[in-house]
């Protein structure tokens, strides 16, 4: 039971990552819709969006420190 939900979260994570990248095979997409839970996708999606913003902030900081500002 527990294993199953971890597996589901893991698949949702892969699905969201594929969504960020913009490529997902039809078979995987169908499986997501059949077995996945909407809540997992929404929560993981929001977390990853926040993560992306933080990544960009650090990227900018790093670029500025490289150029000595």
């Amino acid at each position: 039971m527990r294993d199953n939900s971890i597996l589901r979260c893991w698949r949702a994570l892969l699905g969201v990552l594929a969504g960020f990248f913009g490529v997902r095979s039809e078979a995987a997409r169908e499986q997501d819709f059949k077995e996945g839970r909407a809540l997992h996708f929404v929560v993981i999606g929001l977390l990853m969006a926040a993560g992306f913003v933080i990544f960009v902030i650090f990227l900018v900081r790093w670029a500025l420190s490289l150029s000595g500002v």
Partner: protein
Amino acid sequence: MGTIRTIRTIISGLSLVLLPFTARAEWTVNLSPGVTEVSRSVYDLHMTIFWICVAIGCVVFGVMFWSIFHHRKSKGAKAHHFHEHTLVEIAWTLVPLGILVAMAVPATATLVKMYDPSEADLDIQITGYQWKWRYTYLDKDLDFFSNLATPREQIGNEEAKGDNYLLEVDRHLVLPTDTKIRLLLTANDVIHSWWVPALAVKKDAIPGFINEAWTRIDEPGIYRGQCAELCGQDHGFMPIVVEAVPPEQFQQWLAQVKAEKQAEAAAAEKSWTLDELMTQGEQVYLRACAACHQPTGTGVPPAFPALKGSPVALGDVGAHIDIVLNGRPGTAMQAFRDQLSATELAAVITYERNAWGNSTGEAVAPSQITRILEGNAETAGEGAQ
């Protein structure tokens, strides 16, 4: 006949593209390499990105045309039906991503350079007005307005247009070369934008905000620009002229301007005849007031009132002086006390009271205006001293 002409047109078009590089240096369609380190790196960046785009265009259209030709119907080609191809999709996502990152690296380097106004040797405040620029040399006790100098006759097509039509001003922004200059941009009324292509500076001037930019000019010369933010009726009539001179010459210029300012103050003290005031007043009026109140004094009612026959121009002198010096807040009528000298103010007021059939016969003495300006300045300036 027609086809021959078409072929000729195409050939002459092609030969333009194939011109040797030297001839193309004169070609002004491209971005200007400019006269500063930043403007040159902006130019290089622009050319790098341009050639990347050309290469992408060649590859994409080349593959497309080749495919169309090679798989043409007459050779019995059949379309291959498939829904998805994950590998190809990944490739066409990763390749553009790589190209974008490769372009972001030089672009970021240039942007960082452009945004670093630290350690400047000279600070200039630039204020946008409807429709002129004001330049304040901070710590140099120098402050002036720069107005369009193109004659109205050229604008009205009554005279042939000059070489620098709508790109000439009465007072240049004189700057020293080989000096890091910080520009502080703001506006008095609406949003303007200070744009001089040769310096690669284009920055919005926003009321209530101060934007920073900087430049370091390598070559002496005259560099022209324009307001780049639609700011009303005369948006196209507020050009910018930067005059870059070697640092020693800049110091001489500063001294000369200060001497002129003192001479002007002395001139305000002498007594002026009505005729003298009228002659100078007409010049000032055409330069500073005619855009709104019109050369004939009839204005553009209801936006800009007529001064011909106006109760203000024919009535109490004090009220007339007051509106010209202090403007009318909330309307397009600005305060001219900082824009014009005491003599110019006296002359233009005299002119308005005696031109176009307004015949009060009254002359306003420059010294009278000086007294008013000094009186107000004492009370207004106390906090600043």
